[in-house]
């Protein structure tokens, strides 16, 4: 198993509260990603990082921010959670071999419920 730890694994919170999800890796991989998985939508990219302090938006970035101050940690923040952000969130990591991308490896997910 790739060394990826997501925390918390489960969280229930109220609309309007801030929420931060953490992804921690022990593989020293350059790339880190946050996805959300919803019924009927598969996996959709929220934000990704290609190095410390280097991040970019994905397909569904509105309402989310990220930070990566260390190689091993990638944080996803919902500044003011809404019910539409109830989802399962997955972190993934990957590396490049020369100029070729390598497969992403995923954590076990965080189930977030916003009431």
């Amino acid at each position, binding site marked *: 198993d790739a060394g990826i730890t997501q925390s918390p694994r489960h969280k229930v919170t109220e609309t309007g509260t801030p929420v931060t999800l953490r992804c921690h890796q022990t593989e020293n991989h350059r790339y880190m990603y946050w996805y959300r998985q919803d019924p009927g939508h*598969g*996996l959709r990219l929220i934000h990704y990082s290609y190095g410390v302090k280097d991040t970019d938006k994905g397909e569904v970035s509105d309402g989310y921010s990220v930070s990566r101050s260390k190689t091993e940690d990638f944080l996803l923040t919902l500044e003011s959670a809404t019910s539409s952000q109830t989802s399962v969130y*997955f972190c993934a990591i990957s590396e490049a071999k020369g100029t070729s*991308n390598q*497969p*992403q490896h995923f*954590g*076990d997910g965080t189930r977030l419920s916003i009431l």
Partner: protein
Amino acid sequence: DQQVKQNSPSLSVQEGRISILNCDYTNSMFDYFLWYKKYPAEGPTFLISISSIKDKNEDGRFTVFLNKSAKHLSLHIVPSQPGDSAVYFCAASRLSGNTPLVFGKGTRLSVIA
């Protein structure tokens, strides 16, 4: 607009038979394709990949076929086993450069004993 499409939400196959999962893509810039398998309450697990310089890649019971002219790929599982029951995601990207994966919506495979 969906760039990666898995048009079959579900598939049922008998144990021992072949499972064929299909995937279509629209972006001609994609040259790197992957299949992931996902069990409930777990993260997706990488299964097999193929780059556009090949039309087939095999790993044990799993084979991926790529038809570039049709922008179509398929995953064959032979023989299918009950433990293969899971959701399978197709994904596509560029082999080089900082290009994230684009995922299909998934196909739920049920292998019946």
